[in-house]
């Protein structure tokens, strides 16, 4: 029982990331009708927003203290981040919470990236065949990842969560288990809650605002809504920006769990596509449900007990599930009939 609960918990953070990326993919596909292979790159760019913010606020001022001498007779160098010398303890706090603080920077950055991408490239592909959409965004994904590789190098750059969240929570105790049985890092819990919050906000936005209503109408029947006028175009641009922000935030918060590197976008994209397909192309709840479901399944598959029976199952479980789903229920778990079945 406790083992099962632990695996479910373990799957939640990864599932959250899948769900967030898949949510954006589905939004973009449903409204703009574009299959965006560069969506994973947005996740990666978000993660590197966090890296950049961390590097910027971590910039150090080097002063020499002539009163203290090293054994070699040179003055001792004192390194102090500018932010600490300016803001004192507040600076220290910001430094410590650099990952969550990055969210503030990531939102405008991702909006800009999203808008530039949509206006500069994607909009010209609305009416082109899916194959060409796939190919051009695939090219874009390579370009973005190579740029990041040039700027930040090929090695993963570990980020640290705030000290307070660096430890693990004894979650088991909350559910009445013995202490120490279900221990789960705080940050992963934070990530799950964060993902849930973002997903909730997106859904609330789509359900409660007029804007959201139009977007949902657009997903249900693009042609008809298109008849209402040019206005739709602008809204779709905003949708793309929104999807970019969601993917970016997913990336920012994921950095303490997985040290970001330039190919993380590609890795997550393939899986998120599978998630979208399993959930049902065009279904937002489907994308979210499938994201968590596959995350949890994956964590079960990585249990040693399971792996000893089916070696390597953790590597392929998601793909296997996708294949089975597509064969048994081609439109995915929650997909509407007829969407992209042709």
């Amino acid at each position: 029982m406790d083992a099962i609960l632990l695996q479910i918990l373990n799957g939640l953070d990864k599932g959250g990331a899948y769900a967030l990326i898949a949510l954006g993919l589905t939004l973009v596909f449903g409204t703009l009708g574009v299959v965006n292979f560069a969506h994973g790159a947005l996740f990666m760019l978000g993660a590197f927003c966090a890296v950049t913010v961390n590097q910027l606020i971590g910039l150090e001022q080097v002063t020499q203290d002539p009163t203290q001498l090293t054994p070699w007779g040179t003055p001792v160098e004192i390194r102090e981040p500018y932010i600490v010398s300016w803001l004192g303890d507040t600076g220290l706090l910001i430094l410590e919470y650099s990952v969550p603080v990055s969210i503030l920077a990531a939102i405008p950055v991702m909006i800009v990236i999203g808008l530039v991408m949509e206006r500069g490239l994607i909009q010209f592909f609305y009416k082109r065949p899916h194959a060409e959409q796939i190919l051009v965004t695939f090219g874009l994904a390579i370009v973005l990842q190579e740029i990041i590789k040039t700027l930040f190098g090929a090695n993963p750059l570990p980020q640290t969560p705030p000290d307070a969240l660096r430890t693990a929570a004894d979650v088991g105790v909350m559910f009445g288990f013995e202490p120490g049985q279900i221990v789960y890092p705080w940050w992963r819990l934070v990530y799950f809650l964060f993902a849930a919050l973002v997903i909730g906000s997106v859904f609330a936005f789509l359900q409660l605002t007029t804007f959201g209503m139009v977007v949902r109408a657009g997903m249900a029947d693009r042609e008809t809504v298109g008849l209402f006028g040019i206005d739709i175009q602008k809204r779709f641009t905003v949708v793309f920006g929104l999807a970019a922000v969601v993917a970016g935030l997913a990336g920012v918060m994921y950095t303490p769990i997985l040290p970001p590197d330039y190919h993380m976008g590609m890795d997550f994209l393939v899986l998120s596509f599978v998630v979208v397909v399993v959930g049902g192309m065009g279904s937002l709840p489907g994308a979210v449900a499938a994201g968590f479901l596959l995350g949890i399944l994956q964590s079960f598959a990585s249990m040693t007990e399971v792996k000893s029976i089916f070696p390597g199952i953790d590597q392929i479980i998601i793909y296997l599930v996708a294949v089975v789903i597509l064969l048994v229920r081609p439109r995915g778990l929650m997909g509407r009939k007829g969407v992209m079945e042709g």
Partner: protein
Amino acid sequence: MKPVKATARNDHLLFVVFAVVVLAMPIWLAPLGAGYPDLMQKFAIYGLFAMGFNILFGLTGYLSFGHAAFLGVGSYTAVWSFKLLGMNPLPAIALAVVTTGVFAWVIGYISLRRTGIYFSILTLAFAQMSYNLAYSVLTPITNGETGLRVLNDDPRILDHMVGRGEADGSLVATLFGVEMNGMPGFYFCAAFLIIGMYISIRIFRSPFGLMLRAIKTNQNRLNYTGVSTRPYALTAFVISGMYAGLAGGLLCVTDPLAGAERMQWTASGEVVLMTILGGAGTLVGPIIGAGLIKYSENIFSAFNEQTLHGIFAFLPDGIEGAVVSVAGLFVGEGWHLTLGLLFMIIVIFLPGGLIEGGKRLVDMTGRGPRGGGGGRAGDAAPQAAE
């Protein structure tokens, strides 16, 4: 425009010209700095890979994003043939083609139950799965990260039978006493490229090929015309997989080493690029595309700061430094950046590929300014070679 009619005579002519051009590669590639065997082997091998991909994508329109898996399976099979049977390339090639064919049949059987992007994602998922497996559980077969190579103490039954079991130095594929590296290796690959081209022409012009093209333009109509489309598409998928397997096998004939990175999805993307660059659905386009990509890869990867400084030495100092550092992003390690940009540029401006672009150019000059009226790149769907 007067399209060249695809008569039997013209096709024979095309084939003969193609064969001559391929065999003469060492002569005409030398002035371009590409006349050395390693690179020419790559031209031939990736030409085959793209040619096979084109039979699927160019004719039926099914966009597979997992063809690198077949390249990998072909490679592993060939190396195992070397290990078990010996360094003769012929059984290795035959086994590579057959094994890949079976593998492609299984994957195709499942993937072709869906069309459109679903098909692309399914093939991508299968390829990723194969790649992950090759890296992890299948290590006994694939030797994981290190890659699979032929060792001196491998059985190599046939080699031992003919008394060539003991080898000093590294093991090389050998046919009738000729080692399959350098120029003989190139001619070996070129022979397969020419055979592959012949088969490709036959398929393109056959009733079977016509059915495949009909699948691409209107699968629904074809079904209501009394044709069962799935077996046709599956056959095309298997043939195309076998070409990829052949290419994978040849890679190991010229260098008996197989690694999982060959199956990565960037490799699948590369063959798509080769095909559309040259022109999907045309006979020679994909081979030209493959050649151009491999040629550029070779050139661009070889550049470094030094060579760049050499090239831009004529510029004033300040500018030269800036130009070199910008250009430096695109060469050497930065080749992939160039590849990505190339990908985008081709899809945006020339989705029909170079052959299509060339035709349009001829069209425009031939018919005067009027011909270029509808110059939107996106309108031209790739069409089969006439």
